């Protein structure tokens, strides 16, 4: 019998990504703990578990993704269990389990954007930043460029359907994109790096 990858062990596997050099590695600092406690204090006593999601965002914002160590830390902080936190992490596509590139591009592929050229836009952006679109799979929707500068992901609605096709670079939304605008955008962000 061939050795099967264990679906349980896979939950806590670290997935190395070239993007890691642009984000600080996860470390519990007094500053982080203080912020976490402030979130937890927003919920009634005995409901500390409710703060799991805000804490996940806190970690992801700073460190780019949710690593297995941070799952354990969040569970401990919220008096929850690692499996509960992992359940939430694995539920939301917006919560990443591997590190994105410095500039994370989200291309909308929901119907309005797809009809107005979103699909062509996705493959064009991939070409521009040197990522094979086949690297985006159902299991691993995000693909990171070898230099760690870029990552790309096809996402659901970005809430600007009237102005498609839309894409986001990190937290900035860019609407009515075409190939020329993508060229400018990539150049602009390359300079920032």
């Amino acid at each position, binding site marked *: 019998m061939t050795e*099967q990858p*264990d*679906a*349980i*062990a896979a*939950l*806590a596997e670290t997935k190395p990504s070239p993007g890691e050099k642009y984000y600080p590695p996860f470390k519990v600092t007094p500053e982080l703990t203080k912020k976490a406690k402030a979130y937890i204090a927003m919920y009634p006593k005995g409901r500390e578990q409710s703060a799991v999601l805000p804490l996940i965002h806190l970690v992801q914002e700073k460190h780019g993704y949710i690593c*297995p160590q941070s*799952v354990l830390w969040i569970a401990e902080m919220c008096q*929850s*269990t*690692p*499996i*509960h936190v*992992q*359940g939430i992490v*694995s*539920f*939301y*596509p917006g919560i990443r389990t591997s590190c994105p590139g410095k500039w994370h591009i989200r291309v909308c592929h929901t119907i309005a954007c797809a009809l107005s050229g979103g699909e062509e836009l996705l493959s064009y952006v991939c070409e521009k930043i040197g990522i094979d679109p086949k690297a985006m799979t159902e299991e691993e929707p995000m693909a990171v460029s070898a230099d760690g500068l870029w990552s790309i992901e096809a996402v659901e609605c970005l809430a600007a359907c009237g102005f498609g096709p839309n894409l986001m670079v990190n937290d900035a939304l860019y609407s009515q994109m075409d190939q020329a605008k993508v060229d400018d955008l990539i150049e602009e962000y390359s300079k920032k790096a």
Partner: protein
Amino acid sequence: MSTEQQILPKDAAAAEGKVNVQINGTWYRFPKGTRIADACNSVGVHVPCFCYHPKLSVAGSCRMCLVEQGMPPRLAPGATPTYNDDGYQTIQWMPRAIVACANTVAENMGIRTNGTVCTEARRAVLEFLLTNHPLDCPICDQAGECKLQEYTADYGQLTHRFTESKIKKGKNLSIGPRVNLDQERCVLCRRCVRFMKEIVGEEVLGVVGRGGRNAIACYPGKTLDSNYSMNVVDICPVGAMTSKDFRFKMRVWFLKSTPTIDVNCGTGTNINIWTREQQVYRITPRQNDAVNSCWMPDDHRLNYKYINAPERLLTPLIRTDQQTEQRPAAWEPLLRAVAEQLRRCKSSELAIIASARLTNEELYLTKHLADLLGVKALDIVPRVGENDGMLISADRNPNTTGAKLILGKDGSTLPDIVRGIKIGKIRSLIVLGEDVTAEAGIPAEQLRKLDYLLVMAHSESPTTQEADAVLPGVTFAEKHGTMINVTGRIQRLNQAIDPLGEARADWDILRALLQECGDVPLKAARATSSMEILEEMAEQFEALSGVTWANIGNSGRQILETGVTIPLIEREHAKQP
């Protein structure tokens, strides 16, 4: 509708705190707050459920229990309700089905489980559940007692419309020392997750992923190692959770289940023993809300291997000379020889160490044997452990309450007997169902020095090895009898398999011995079953008055108030409104 001052069914029901519900055309009355699923099942209308379990919180996630429901139409402002000749309002059926587990009954509600709305909804739910289900049935342990199989036979369609490839998930995952997980077979009812969280209080299981990739998992580094972990195997409606002990051992349809009780502690957990021919394959808990709810501890569940172990004594043994080995003997001559030897013993030099693992009937015969032989030194071996705060009682003997009632002994005089043997005051000893070298603490050398040692036991032990005569008894699976648990509830042991080899049921051995030892004016000495012995006991003990084999039933009967409670049951009662 008649205009007389007739009481409407709704008012009659309300007076009893109940509501009228029409199920498949027939009107019934149920207490307010009854779940629709429970109401239907209680009147013989089967509602298929995966996720609903009466002892766990309601998830309502499997959607298998969909039923068609209707209520009287909402009245226009100022309108008064009209009632038909039977006093009910007409039911307006809802076009969509609702789940029967998360909704409760209401006055004048209608439920239909035989219409198209309901069966079509269930067929659709099953089709979804089966899209990613593997075709494992031929090698799956659950086959034969799988809810998914049963409901597919009831509501499923034979053709498969799903032509895409199935999503692969983890198979044969070891998630704990006693439980294996197959994520592909799972229907995501989350009973196991809720059981671990709500009953055990260790949240080690959870759901990861989303949509088609949803799967039950435990976090790496955490394992399902609770002493109650195997209950998830019982409550799993499909073959996702399987017992490592039972995996691939036997197809369940070959097994016979016998309702009986667990004898590992004073709780007397109600169980089913699953056997084929003379072999025990597994033990599962049996629901009894006064004793063990629906659960049982793993170590008790797995403690059945000794029943079919090579250590079992299958023939009577006798040692004719101190220096020789024990040799097999025939029952009748051996019992005659034993009786002769016992009659020769001075009663002041003879002691009996009985066991609180014997049934009430056996203890009763033991008492009469002691009386007949004039033995005063008689006691049981106490076993005390730690109460686990769930189901395992601190008293590790199953029938201490019975021993107290029948023998008037609780183990407190055992040290006197042990000392008597040590100083040589006791020269002969009868041991019934115990290994006295263990808990009683009598060294084998001291047993060797005795003039005569008679042992009745089901398995070989250092005590039987020193015996002058060994009477092979049976384990709890091979005999009928009653025991009284720590709370004072009398419960039945039922025979699951025949006594192995030439072994005889303990009550039968004691009865034969009693007959050989002298003329006893007891019905019990001539009894042909332990039920007859119980009949005689019911006449003699106040606590047992009116108790019969039949009225104990499979769920037992409270006969004493000992004041001892079972923590898990107390918690369950506290949760009830």
